[in-house]
């Protein structure tokens, strides 16, 4: 949300038109139902949450423009805005409990709590002309959670908004078309107008079909949320918002083609895991391929349901296949069960630095060292390529969650590192999940991510992952590896999860992915 100045000029003209045309249809908006006390509490709660989540000085502009926008949305006085800014800057310390209590017990929340969520999401997306900042989304997640609203409900609200915007866009297109073709095609206009009407109100649809269409309408979240779609959006220019949210090209990530190659990447594209247009999306990145096909890019993630729009990155399959085969050769071929168990306990005791590796393992090292070092190198470049894509907003102005294991986690790490170097890197990434990551575990290397990632940075590690330790045996530089230990960063973003009880060996990150994802809190 970078202030109101980005609002498309057409938004305002549309507002006037729609108000002039149908004042009697205008439903009382949720803001009009709020009293001063409620508005003030809501603003205070937002300001305190902003301070809690984004207290660093580099987020000051974001905090203040968020508050400016919210205060004008709630039609509160500028004096209140100043108080809220002071509250968000932590000039004054205040607890949010009392405000949450007031909000929850207010009469306008009694009917349906989702009305507030709906209002906030709509305001967040439309006031900025279709920019859904990852910080705003995480803030909304935080606030709705505190108001005892489920995340699924928030997602339903988001999904409904997209539907409404799509309908609105259809309508606008039809209106434009009909104006253009007025004289020539009188016949068609009638048909267009009819379609436009049907899109405008689900209620009318039910009436016409005598309830037959009802299951269709109810399938959308509109049923839970209530209210007629067109009336709620009213003054918003659907096309402008949709274009901003999903990127101007319209092709999105699935249609993304590497225009400029970074480094020597041979393969890099996005393949959809689930296909739908949502207000937020998840990108998964695999760490190696087993067997001789690319199915690992998708099979591993088959149960993931983190966002309703998800992609998997297909990258360097040739090298990842070679690595996967080497992993399997070592873990399932040459190493005996007893040796593996012994290594696990040694790794657990933290003695590996001093240990003499088993002769069988050392003699087989040549098999794995080469593909490993090639993939280490490639994953850095793929990470930078991913950063380019995200910074260019190829996915539109929407928050992104990244999930990756092994070298896929390394891709994410270097993506973040590249983003941290650039300007305008805030507000894109929502959450990060790194599983068994072959990257530095030094706190210093992670601190710079605080301005890149709005939500949580989850590091899933395994203390007994001796293969990962073995791969780093020659590197004196990297004694701290994120995939082997927690990252001791005191920040609300950082979450370390010990997966030692789930992960038997490095290969389990792919084989046992569902249990791993459940353990780190990915749906």
């Amino acid at each position, binding site marked *: 949300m970078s202030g109101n100045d980005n609002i498309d000029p057409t938004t305002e003209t549309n507002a006037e038109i729609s108000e002039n045309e149908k004042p009697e249809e205008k439903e009382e908006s949720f803001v009009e139902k709020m009293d*001063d006390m409620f*508005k*003030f509490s809501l603003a205070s709660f937002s300001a305190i949450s902003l301070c809690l989540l984004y207290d660093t000085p580099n987020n000051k502009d974001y905090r203040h423009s968020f508050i400016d926008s919210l205060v004008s949305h709630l039609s509160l006085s500028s004096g209140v805005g100043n108080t809220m800014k002071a509250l968000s800057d932590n000039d004054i*310390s205040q*607890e*949010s409990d*009392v405000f949450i209590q007031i909000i929850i017990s207010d009469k306008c929340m009694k009917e349906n709590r989702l009305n507030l969520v709906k209002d906030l999401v709509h305001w967040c997306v439309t006031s900025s002309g279709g920019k859904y900042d990852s910080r705003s989304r995480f803030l909304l997640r935080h606030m709705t*959670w505190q108001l005892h609203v489920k995340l699924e409900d928030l997602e339903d609200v988001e999904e409904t908004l997209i539907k409404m915007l799509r309908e609105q866009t259809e309508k606008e297109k039809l209106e434009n078309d009909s104006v253009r073709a007025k004289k020539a095609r009188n016949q068609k206009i009638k048909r267009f107008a009819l379609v436009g009407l049907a899109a405008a109100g689900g209620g009318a649809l039910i009436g016409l079909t005598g309830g037959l269409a009802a299951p269709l309408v109810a399938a959308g979240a509109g049923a839970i949320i209530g209210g007629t779609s067109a009336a709620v959006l009213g003054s918003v220019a659907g096309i402008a918002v949709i274009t901003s949210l999903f990127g101007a090209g319209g092709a999105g990530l699935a249609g993304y083609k590497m225009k400029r190659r970074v480094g020597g990447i041979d393969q890099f594209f996005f393949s959809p895991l689930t296909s739908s247009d949502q207000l937020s999306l998840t990108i998964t990145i695999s760490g190696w391929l087993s067997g001789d096909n690319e199915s690992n890019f998708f099979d591993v993630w088959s149960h993931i349901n983190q966002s309703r729009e998800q992609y998997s990155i297909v990258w360097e399959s040739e090298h990842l296949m070679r690595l996967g085969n080497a992993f399997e050769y070592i873990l399932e071929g040459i190493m005996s069960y007893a040796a593996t168990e012994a290594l696990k306990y040694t790794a657990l005791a933290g003695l590996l630095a001093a240990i003499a590796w088993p002769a069988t393992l050392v003699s087989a090292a040549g098999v794995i060292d080469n593909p490993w070092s090639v993939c280490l190198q490639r994953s850095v470049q793929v990470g930078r390529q991913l950063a380019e894509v995200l910074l260019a907003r190829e996915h539109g102005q929407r928050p992104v969650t990244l999930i990756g294991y092994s070298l896929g986690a390394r891709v994410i790490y270097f993506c973040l590192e590249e983003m941290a170097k650039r300007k305008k890197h805030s507000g894109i990434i929502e959450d990060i999940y790194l599983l068994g990551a072959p990257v530095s575990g030094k706190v210093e290397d992670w601190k710079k991510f605080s301005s890149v990632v709005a939500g949580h940075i989850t590091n899933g590690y395994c203390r007994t992952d001796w293969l990962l330790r073995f791969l780093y045996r020659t590197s004196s530089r990297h004694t701290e590896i994120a995939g082997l230990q927690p990252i001791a960063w005191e920040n609300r973003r950082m979450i370390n999860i010990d997966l030692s009880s789930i992960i038997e060996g490095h290969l389990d990150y792919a084989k046992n992915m569902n249990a791993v994802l459940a353990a780190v*809190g990915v749906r």
Partner: protein
Amino acid sequence: MEGDILTTLKILIIGDSGVGKSSLLLRFTDDRFDPDQSATIGVDFKVKSLTVEGNTVKLAIWDTAGQERFRTLTPSYYRGAQGVIFVYDCTRKDSFSHLSTWLTEVETYSTKPNIVKMLVGNKIDKENRVVTREEGLKFARKHSMLFIEASAKTRDGVECAFEELVEKIIQTPGLWENDGTSNRGTKLSMDTSQGGGCGC
């Protein structure tokens, strides 16, 4: 012009609706008077530096809403306040008689036992005064408060009220010395919110 800031003091302004709390603050911070001052929503917050006897302090002043409907909010603002200003309107008896209610509230919610209290009788420029200076003084003495009569409109006594209050706070041992770091109670709720992002 000003030296190092000694400390930041939290000061609260309370009293009935319409007695002129916001006007007093506006006069003090901006040296302005707005005859059409609108009712405060929730709370207003202003910062001003003040030098008293060579010590510069930063004042974080909270101007609370007097209206009954915002009364549920007020208790949450008392935490950590070192000084409180009670305001009544010299031309309205009810605003004076309600002072004891406000006093109870301060005693109930204040986290500092030796919080410095000041009583300000506002609007002395008006002709139709009903609360005499003696009455005010008597109430202040009884409850060991500082007392001053003032007019936000004519500037009388406004600066003096804040200065005296600050002077008294600085002189009170144990009220402000160890208050450099303000710990946020909300940190706790943050920790519990890290449950992997699931909303329930």
